[in-house]
C-alpha cells in the first residue's frame, strides 16, 4: 500500500511536470497506477494485459472483476479510470458518463471478443464436430429434442452414426454474460424455435446446471449425452458443435469469431468513439461464427489529470495492439479471438482522441 501511495505521489508530480509538455503518452514517462473495474468475462484477458503492460511501461494496473453493471457504475461515479462491460452504456448511463468525462466523448471499445462453444460429451462419436442449426440447438435446450439420434439431428449430420443416448442440456446456474449472448443467439437466429428473450439468467425452470464456467464444464464432462455452452477456451477435451451459417456449418475459431464482428453493423447510436456493435446473430457471411461474446472497455476522451489520461491512452493502445490481442488470445491466458486489423484501426483512432482537458 505504501508503495502504491508513493507511486501515485510520483505520478502526480510527473503529471504536474509534463502537463505543459507533449501529450503523447505512449513513449516512456509513464508511471503511477491505473484502476479499472467491471466484466468478469474480461478478467483473464485483463490479467494478461495488466502483466504485459506493466512489463512495458512500469504502470501498475488494477482490475476489479465486480461484474459489468458494477464496473459501469464505478466508472460513472469516477471511482475507476476505465470499465470493462459486456453491454454498451444505455441512454441514461451515457448521459452520466459524458458528465463524468468532463463533457467530452465516451469511448466504448470492443477489444475483447470471445467465441462461445456449444460443448457436448458424447463418447463414441467419431465426427470432429456435430453439426447443428440454431433452431436445432434451441429445440435441444428447450427440451423438444431429447435424444441424439433425433431425425432433425440425423438430417444435419449425414454419414455420422449418432447413438440413442438421451440429451441432457446443461445451463449456467448463475447470471452470466455467456448465457445472455447464448440466449440472444438462440432468440435471433433460430427463426422462432426459441420463444424466450435474451437474458443473463437462464429462462427455463428445471434442468441440469453448473455454477460458473468451470462448474458447467464439470457437469458436461461428468455426464454422458450432456450438452452445454461455455467460453471456447474451456472446451478442450469435449466435442464442439459446428453451427449453421448460411448453407454451411462453421466450427468456432478465433478467425470466425472476429469475422462475425466485422460483418455486424454498428449499433444504434454508435459513432467514432462509441464503437458499439449489434452482433448479427443471423449472419450468412461465409466463415463467420455468430455465437460470440463481445466485451467493451469504456473510457473517457477527456480526463482532468494528465497522468491519468496518458496512462489510460497507453494502456488501451496496448490492449488493442497486435501484441496485446495476441497475449489475450493465448489459450493459457483467455483464449479470446484477436480483433481484425480493420477494427483495430477504428479502435486506435478512438483511443487517439484521449487527451487532458
Amino acid at each position: 500500500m505504501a508503495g502504491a501511495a508513493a507511486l501515485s505521489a510520483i505520478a502526480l508530480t510527473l503529471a504536474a511536470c509534463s502537463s505543459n509538455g507533449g501529450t503523447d503518452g505512449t513513449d516512456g514517462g509513464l508511471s503511477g497506477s491505473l484502476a479499472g473495474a467491471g466484466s468478469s468475462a474480461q478478467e483473464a484477458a485483463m490479467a494478461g494485459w495488466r502483466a504485459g503492460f506493466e512489463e512495458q511501461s512500469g504502470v501498475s494496473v488494477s482490475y476489479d472483476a465486480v461484474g459489468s453493471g458494477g464496473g459501469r457504475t464505478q466508472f460513472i461515479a469516477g471511482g475507476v479510470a476505465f470499465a470493462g462491460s459486456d453491454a454498451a452504456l444505455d441512454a441514461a448511463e451515457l448521459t452520466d458518463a459524458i458528465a463524468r468525462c468532463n463533457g467530452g466523448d465516451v469511448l466504448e471499445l470492443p477489444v475483447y471478443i470471445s467465441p462461445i462453444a456449444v460443448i457436448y460429451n458424447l463418447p463414441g462419436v467419431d465426427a470432429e464436430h456435430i453439426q447443428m442449426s440454431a433452431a436445432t440447438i434451441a429445440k435441444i435446450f428447450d427440451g423438444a429434442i431429447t435424444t441424439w439420434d433425433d431425425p432433425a439431428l440425423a438430417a444435419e449430420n449425414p454419414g455420422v452414426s449418432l447413438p440413442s443416448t438421451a440429451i441432457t442440456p446443461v445451463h449456467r446456474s448463475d447470471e452470466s454474460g455467456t448465457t445472455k449472448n447464448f440466449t440472444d443467439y438462440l432468440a435471433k437466429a433460430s427463426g422462432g424455435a426459441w420463444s424466450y428473450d435474451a437474458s443473463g439468467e437462464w429462462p427455463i425452470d428445471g434442468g441440469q446446471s453448473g455454477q460458473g464456467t468451470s462448474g458447467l464444464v464439470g457437469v458436461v464432462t461428468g455426464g454422458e449425452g450432456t450438452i452445454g455452452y461455455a467460453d471456447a477456451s474451456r472446451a478442450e477435451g469435449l466435442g464442439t458443435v459446428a453451427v449453421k451459417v448460411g448453407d454451411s456449418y462453421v466450427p468456432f475459431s478465433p478467425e470466425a469469431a472476429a469475422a462475425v464482428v466485422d460483418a455486424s453493423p454498428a449499433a444504434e447510436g454508435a459513432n467514432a468513439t462509441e464503437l458499439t456493435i449489434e452482433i448479427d446473430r443471423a449472419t450468412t457471411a461465409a466463415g463467420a461464427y455468430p455465437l460470440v461474446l463481445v466485451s467493451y472497455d469504456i473510457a473517457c476522451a477527456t480526463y482532468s489529470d494528465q497522468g491519468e489520461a496518458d496512462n489510460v491512452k497507453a494502456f488501451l493502445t496496448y490492449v488493442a495492439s497486435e501484441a496485446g490481442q495476441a497475449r489475450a488470445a493465448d489459450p493459457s491466458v483467455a483464449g479470446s479471438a484477436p480483433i481484425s486489423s480493420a477494427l483495430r484501426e477504428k479502435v486506435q483512432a478512438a483511443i487517439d482522441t484521449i487527451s487532458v482537458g
Partner: protein
Amino acid sequence: MTVTSPTRSPRTPAAASGGTRSRRRSGRGFYGLSLGAGISILVVLAAVAAFLLIEAWPAIVASREELDAISWLDASSLAVYIGPLIFGTLLSSVLALLFAVPIAVGIALFISHYAPRAIAQALGYLVDLLAAIPSVVYGLWGALWLQPVIDPFFRWLSDNLGFIPLFADYTPPARNVLAASTVLAVMILPIITAVSREVFLQAPRLHEEAALALGATRWEMVRMAVLPFGRSGVISASMLGLGRALGETMAVLMIISPGYLFSFFLLKPGQHQTIAANIASKFPEASGLSVNALIATGLALFTITFAVNMLARWVIARRKEFSGAN
C-alpha cells in the same frame, strides 16, 4: 459434550457459609464474569438479528417495480421468491436427518454398549475426525466422487420405482436434492453420533444391570434401559445436526443443480435450492437492492433455525418425565 445438563442453582451454598473477604470477592468476581459471558450470547444474537432486519428492510418494503429490476428475482413478491427456497432448505435437511439419525444411533449404541473397549475408542476418534473435515471438502467429495458412484443406484431407483413421483425422471449426472441430502447426512453424522454416544454412556448402570438380571437379552436391555433414557438426548443431537444441515452452503452449492420450485421430484435436477447456497451463488455479483433481498432470505433462514431450536426444546421438555434422568 453434554446436552441435557441438569439445571443448577446459580449460587452454591458454599459461597454463603463464611470464608475470608477476599475469597468472597473472588467468588463475586467470577459470578460477574460468568454473568457477562451469559449476557454476551444474548447481545451477539440480538446484534445478528438486528443486522439482518435492518439490511433486509429495504427489500421487504420495496415495491414490485423495484424488485423487478433485480434480474434474478423472477417472482411477484419477495415472499414468493423466498418460499421455494425455504422449501428446498427444509426438504434437503429433513432428508439428511432421515438418513443420518438411524445410522448415527446405531453407531453410538455400538460404541457405547457393544464394541470391545479398544475398538470403541478408535471408532469414537474416527467419528470425531469426520466432524473436523471442512464442508468444502465434503462438497468436492460429493461432486467428484459420490456423483458417479451413486449414479447406478439412482438409475435403478428411477427405473424400478419411477412410478412413485418421488423417484421419477432421474437425469444423470446426479445433481439432485437426494444426492445433496446424502452428503449432508454424512456431514451431520458425527455430531449426532458424538452427542448420542455421550448420552447412552450416561444411562444408569444399575438400570442396565437390573434389566440383565431379570433375564433380558442385551438388545432388550438397550431397548428398556438405554433408549428411553437417551431419547431426549438423541432428539437434541438430531436438532444440532438439523441446524448444521440447514445452514450448510458449500456442499449444496457444489452438488445441486438449482431450481426454484415446490417439487417433490427428488431425483430430478433443477428443482430445489437452499437459502445458504443461493446466497453464496448470487452474492458475488449482487449490488444495491439485490444484496438486501439476499439478506432477507438470510433472515428467513435465521428465523427457521430459531424455530427449529425452539421446537427441539419443547419436544425435550415434554418428554422429560419419560427420560429416566430425574
